[in-house]
């Protein structure tokens, strides 16, 4: 009895999987949106003169980078509610985990890009009377942002794939949807192939989007 690849399984599972795809996109989008915000704050926090902000940013980045995402997810969903006494919906926990996790890596991207801008730019900004904040806003950030795009793209793709770990808290994203389909039809090979291809389509689309953004910024200057 040889293995028979059943194409029909793929067609049958696509509609259900697309529901999971939608949720994966949704979690990735909001997770990264908040993550970018957190990462920008923490990244800037590492470049400012305040020792306190340096420390806070460093503790955040090191804690998140130094622990597995899986543990973070379970801590947020199973651990925190025990201490706080209230339950968090899995979706909220999932978005929070992706946001906190990506934020830590994005912080390093932001810090690196800002510090890569020549000191002379800051001096020129300050010498025409701009405040520290104005110098970052008008002079440093626009230049740094361009340099952030390739590493940000990398992080976006990693975070998108990381949403698959949310199966452990029962969020019905793409991977979870795949598991559920297999639980019914036992066609692991076909379904995981389809799931993998769907992730690939998502990440390739993201890559393309970032490449276009990069090109556009290139033309603008």
């Amino acid at each position: 009895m040889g293995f028979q690849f059943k194409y029909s399984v793929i067609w049958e599972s696509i509609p259900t999987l697309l529901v999971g795809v939608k949720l994966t996109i949704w979690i990735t989008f909001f997770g990264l949106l908040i993550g970018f915000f957190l990462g920008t704050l923490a990244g800037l926090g590492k470049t400012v003169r305040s020792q306190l902000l340096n420390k806070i940013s460093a503790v955040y980045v090191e804690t998140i980078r130094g622990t597995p995402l899986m543990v973070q997810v379970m801590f947020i969903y199973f651990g925190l509610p025990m201490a706080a006494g209230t339950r968090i919906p899995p979706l909220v926990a999932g978005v929070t985990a992706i946001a906190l996790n990506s934020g830590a890596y994005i912080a390093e991207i932001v810090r690196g890009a800002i510090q890569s801008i020549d000191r002379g730019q800051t001096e020129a900004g300050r010498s025409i009377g701009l405040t520290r904040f104005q110098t970052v806003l008008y002079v440093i950030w626009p230049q740094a942002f361009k340099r952030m795009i390739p590493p940000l793209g990398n992080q976006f793709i990693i975070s998108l794939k990381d949403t698959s770990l949310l199966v452990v808290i029962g969020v019905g994203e793409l991977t979870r949807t795949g598991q559920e389909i297999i639980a019914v039809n036992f066609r692991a090979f076909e379904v995981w192939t389809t799931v993998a291809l769907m992730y690939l389509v998502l990440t390739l689309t993201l890559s393309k989007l970032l490449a276009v953004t990069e090109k556009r910024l290139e033309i603008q200057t």
Partner: protein
Amino acid sequence: MIKITRLFKNFGSLEVLKDIDLHVMPGEVVVIIGPSGSGKSTLLRCINRLEVATSGTIIVDGFDINDEKTNINFIRTEAGMVFQQFNLFPHMTALRNVTLGPIKVRKIPRAKAEKLGMDLLKKVGLGDKIHVHPDQLSGGQKQRVAIARSLALNPKVMLFDEPTSALDPELVGEVLEVMKVLAKDGMTMVVVSHEMGFAREVADRVIFMDDGVIVEENTPEKIFAHPQNERTMNFLKMVL
């Protein structure tokens, strides 16, 4: 205009400036010369607090710049700085480079700032490069935009930190020409430079620095023809 008294500056244990006294009168053009590492640039950078003095006082236009109560951003608009490496903002056009300060610091309306910017770019001979980005300008053109950028804030003093040292030889003249016009218009200028010809022609006073101290100062005629100090003599012998 500038009154520096007993200025010391250390970088860690390295003493870069040792007991500097310097007065610059309104409208005066002072050129500082000296070997590299003598503290010339550091002195200039202390004047608009890009470097913070270790001790001593620096009064610019009546304001003590090391006083916590002095608004340093205001002082910086009073003392324009031109850098060796131009430090133009690469993501902005020449015009935007010039108008950023007036718009964001002086709060001048955009239309008025752009008029001012265009006038200044014309003044430095770049009326046709208004909408060009720095990467399409030559070094000499970049430095002239940088001068216009500083002038846009209507400063009382202009500080020049080796403004022609990063330029190809054939581009030095056009920058010096702009500086000469400024000097003729009565701008107070402090210039760190290796351009002895410029010093001779334009300076009211030449200061020779070595090893963190002002060794000798005099009119260009006297200092070039009859240097008093042996260190000045040796330096001039090497560069002239």
